[in-house]
């Protein structure tokens, strides 16, 4: 800890002293309410757009009322740090990272959950854990307080938490359609590389009709200096599996670990009980923002399905219980799932990471990944659901893997296992993305067929409304691609609307692994790599 401050302080002082004119450059933004969400919180259900008005505050005079559609949603917020840190590879090697770490929702992230919160929760103090990672006491510590995972906004606390706390992958983000997301990036500096003065950004990969301003490309927008914060603002795009990463010197910052996942859940999850999801999708055509009319828009994302035939209000697939979850606004229930698993494929080149830590010139063309990662871990760590739980931190159990950083403190830097657990007959949604920077990667399923339902965050459906899902036992992705797979542990189902499972797959352990056999390695260890387990109980 002491060592890190010795390195850090001059960096901070030089940067802040030369760059900023105002008193404080760390600034976290999460309004309790907005024009679009005047109450801040979510409406309970979506049966169709509700026409109304929103108030826009002008500089002078009274509010202007603008026509708007209310589709529900809420104000959601998340805060991340950009910096450096360490992870542990499956062969025990400690690896240096450039990475993002959580500055809000810490307990959620360490539990392998999305750290995204409602504004109310985000704006509460962080009360969990008596100390910050570096041992400094948490003045807000309050064991037993509800919603203990609020954002860390105090400048000193940001540094106590964010320094050398890079995660791999970056904090998980999950939002719902119609949400507004305020995503704050705070650059805490890279302690091990004070020579770099490196900026960071967030690129929300795949955001449709993105503004260049919030696209995170430093050449086309702004980049966040050390000691600064920037709040990215997004209205949730169409449902799908997206991902995010830093866009500074991408071959370097992505290889070094600045990669994460973000997915958007469909408003179909909010269709009230007793209403057909088809009817809700029909109703959605009343709002041009969320309509999907292929005769007018060649980028129509979710055309009405040709099925179901029954278009009556109670027809089609009825959204019934709170456990009904869908990947997309399919209108036919075909993307329903019981459990969702974000899976990000990546690769680490140990030589590049070593060079990246040691001030040496980096070779890009020579990059050769030797660790092949699912959510930042190689097998068998991918199925390590207990982790090396550090009891000195917080109060709840966590699946995070901890790694000691250079000041001697432990950080839950690899929070996401990839153990897929299903009961017989259940369906898993695998949200698979790839941010490897060197080569294509294949992930295969042994035993359970993969049904590919979407590519690049878009439902596989032709403009006539036919689902073009396909069954396969392997998928291949390059860097910057994503797709959605349903693993169904039921081999025969009854009719709609319940689709009750009539023939279940046997219980047991199934595998997801790469048939690129040289990727089944952890550097010199010839067994491990891109592999995980599917446990059917």
């Amino acid at each position, binding site marked *: 800890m002491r060592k890190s401050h010795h390195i850090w302080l001059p960096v901070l002082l030089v940067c802040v002293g030369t760059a900023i004119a105002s008193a404080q450059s760390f600034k976290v933004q999460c309004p309790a309410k907005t024009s679009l969400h005047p109450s801040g919180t979510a409406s309970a259900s979506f049966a169709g757009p509700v026409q109304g008005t929103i108030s826009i505050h002008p500089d002078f005079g009274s509010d*202007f009322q603008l026509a708007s559609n209310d589709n529900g949603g809420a104000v959601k917020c998340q805060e991340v740090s950009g910096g450096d840190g360490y992870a542990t590879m499956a062969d025990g090697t400690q690896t240096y990272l450039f990475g993002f770490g959580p500055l809000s929702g810490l307990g959620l992230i360490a539990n392998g959950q999305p750290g995204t919160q409602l504004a109310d929760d985000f704006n509460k103090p962080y009360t969990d854990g008596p100390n910050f990672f570096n041992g400094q006491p948490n003045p807000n510590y309050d064991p037993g307080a509800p919603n203990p995972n609020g954002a860390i906004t105090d400048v000193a606390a940001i540094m106590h938490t964010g320094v050398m706390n890079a995660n791999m992958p970056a904090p998980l983000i999950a939002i719902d359609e119609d949400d507004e997301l305020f995503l704050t990036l705070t650059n805490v500096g890279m302690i091990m590389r004070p020579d*770099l003065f490196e900026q960071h950004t967030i690129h929300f990969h795949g955001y449709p009709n993105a503004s260049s301003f919030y696209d995170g490309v430093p050449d086309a927008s702004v980049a966040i200096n050390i000691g600064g914060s920037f709040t990215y603002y997004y209205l949730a795009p169409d449902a799908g599996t997206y991902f995010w990463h830093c866009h500074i010197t991408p071959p370097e910052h992505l290889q070094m670990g600045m990669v994460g996942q973000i997915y958007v859940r469909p408003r179909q999850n909010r269709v009230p009980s007793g209403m057909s999801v088809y009817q809700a999708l029909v109703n959605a055509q009343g709002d041009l923002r969320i309509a999907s009319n292929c005769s*007018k828009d060649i980028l129509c994302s979710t055309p009405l399905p040709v099925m179901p035939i029954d278009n009556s209000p109670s027809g089609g697939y009825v959204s019934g219980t709170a456990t009904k979850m869908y990947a997309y606004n399919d209108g036919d229930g075909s993307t329903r799932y019981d459990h969702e698993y974000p899976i990000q494929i990546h690769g680490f080149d140990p030589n590049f990471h070593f060079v990246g830590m040691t001030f040496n010139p980096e070779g890009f063309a020579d990059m050769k990944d030797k660790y092949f990662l699912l959510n930042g871990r190689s097998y068998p760590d991918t199925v390590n659901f207990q982790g090396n739980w550090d009891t000195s931190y917080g109060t709840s159990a966590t699946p995070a893997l901890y790694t000691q950083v250079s000041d001697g403190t432990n950080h839950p830097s690899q929070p996401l296992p990839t153990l897929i657990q299903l009961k017989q007959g259940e369906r898993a949604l695998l949200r698979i993305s790839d941010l490897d920077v060197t*080569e294509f990667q294949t992930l295969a399923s042994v035993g359970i067929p993969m049904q590919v339902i979407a590519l*690049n965050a878009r439902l596989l459906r032709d403009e006539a409304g036919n689902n073009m899902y396909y069954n396969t036992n392997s998928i291949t992705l390059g860097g*910057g691609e994503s797709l959605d797979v349903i693993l169904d542990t039921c081999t025969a189902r009854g009719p709609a609307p319940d689709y009750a499972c009539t023939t279940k797959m046997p219980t047991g352990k199934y595998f997801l692994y790469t048939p690129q056999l040289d990727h089944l390695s952890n550097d010199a260890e010839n067994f491990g790599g891109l592999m995980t387990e599917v446990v059917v109980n």
Partner: protein
Amino acid sequence: MSDFKMQIQTSASRLLPLLAVALISLLTATTWAAVPGITGQTFNLTAQQSYVTQPDGAAVYSWGYGCATGANVAAPSFLPFPGFCNPMQVPGPTLIVNEGDTVVVTLTNNLPAAAGNTSILFPGFQVSTTDPSNSAVQTGVQGLLTREAASGGGTVTYTFIANKPGTHSYYSGTQSDLQVEMGLYGAVVVLPKNVAGCSNSKGEYSLAVAAYDDLVGATSTVNPSCYDREYLFQFAEMDPRIHTQAEAIATCAAGPGVICPTTMQTVATEPYHPTYFLINGRSMPDDMDANYAPEYPAQPYNGNPHMHPGDLTLVRVIGTGRWQHPFHEHGNHVRVLARDGNLLLSASDSTKLAGPLLFTTTTTPGQALDGIFYWTGKGLNWDIYGHKPGDGSVCIPDANGYYTADSGALNYYEWCADHDKPLETHPYGSVGSGGPATLPDANILADGAWYGGSPYLGPDATANAVGTSPIPPAGTVVNSPTTEAGYAFMWHSHNEREITTNDIFPGGMLMMMLVDPPVFHINEAQ
């Protein structure tokens, strides 16, 4: 140049030299793309050696197709604007033909003797190699995949009917692992015949109004491939060690104690270790220079897309070489129309598209992909022009929600549901004061070369911004808020190590797509 230094001082210092080069090259030749090529029904091509240049200063010995010259050879005709067609270029000349044309390509082998024979494959077409004037006589000499032009000035003639509209690749079918690597590849664009289903007029620099023919259904005729502007990107990687070995053989001078190889069989094409990653034969930032820029006599085609909000932009993408490249289009999804000139249509309704929506259009060697991209800024929940209530601006939605009533308006094609919702109505410091967002003090941020200093698009961007003065000052950036005032999006390979040039970042397979405000005239021929 002092302006540049001021602009780029915030970038990482190790990137400065190359970024400066990029800025200088951009400023000296601000220019755009389209799909330039040569047209006609008869093409006289030659395969020759020359050098391609790379932004690190390298001149790489290469082979390429080009336009033959001579007393009996007609000068090529260019579309959509004049250019040049040197005897060697990478990629080879883009052949622009009309559907139904009988296309005759005569290839002369002017490669060095040790290169042996050469040829062209036109995948997707039924190719004849007989003499067009005497169908009983075969041209060229027999090769493995096709008839070939013999070493030392031999010729071969390929004849085919261009019966498939769309984008197609062509490349050498002789010792392909070496010859394609050396640069012997190019594109054929076939323009469709029946495009009555399109209501748009042909774009100023477009080759046609649609990429494919009308689709005739039971009740209507439609054309989902109509477009307003178009670009062609040919992706290939390059291993300079292979080129060096080939050059050594080609220039080998026999003498006492020196026996020169008579073939290129000893050139080691494995292990493959590319260090250059090319779009249309150029690495970034060279791809941002003009089509037919005189400094690239052997690399006439650029990669520098521009568009206006709402423009339907046809993206023609060809993979060459050996590797796949995940080509990521920032800004929106691409609707895939076709692969190798084959439209992807619904099985139940052959007037409806079935190609996927992709934000990463992976290139595959030998495969051509056509897709439609557009950008409108729809659904951001803020006004991309920074209009405020009461400022007199107008946005009357059409049936699709866009302002299309006045094609001359500053905000033509604005998404009206977000009109009058500026990103921030109060400056820095007033969190939640009528946002949706409040921007931080601009001084804590580093500005990119394509960033106009405000979140907004168009000539009023600076005036409509609030808070601290937008930085950098107007006139100091590539995409100046006082002239172009566009939004820039990076289009690049997402196997990110490929956005480097011989280990230097930035470079390689990277370009900046500019969404320009509607009032900014995009002169692709400039």
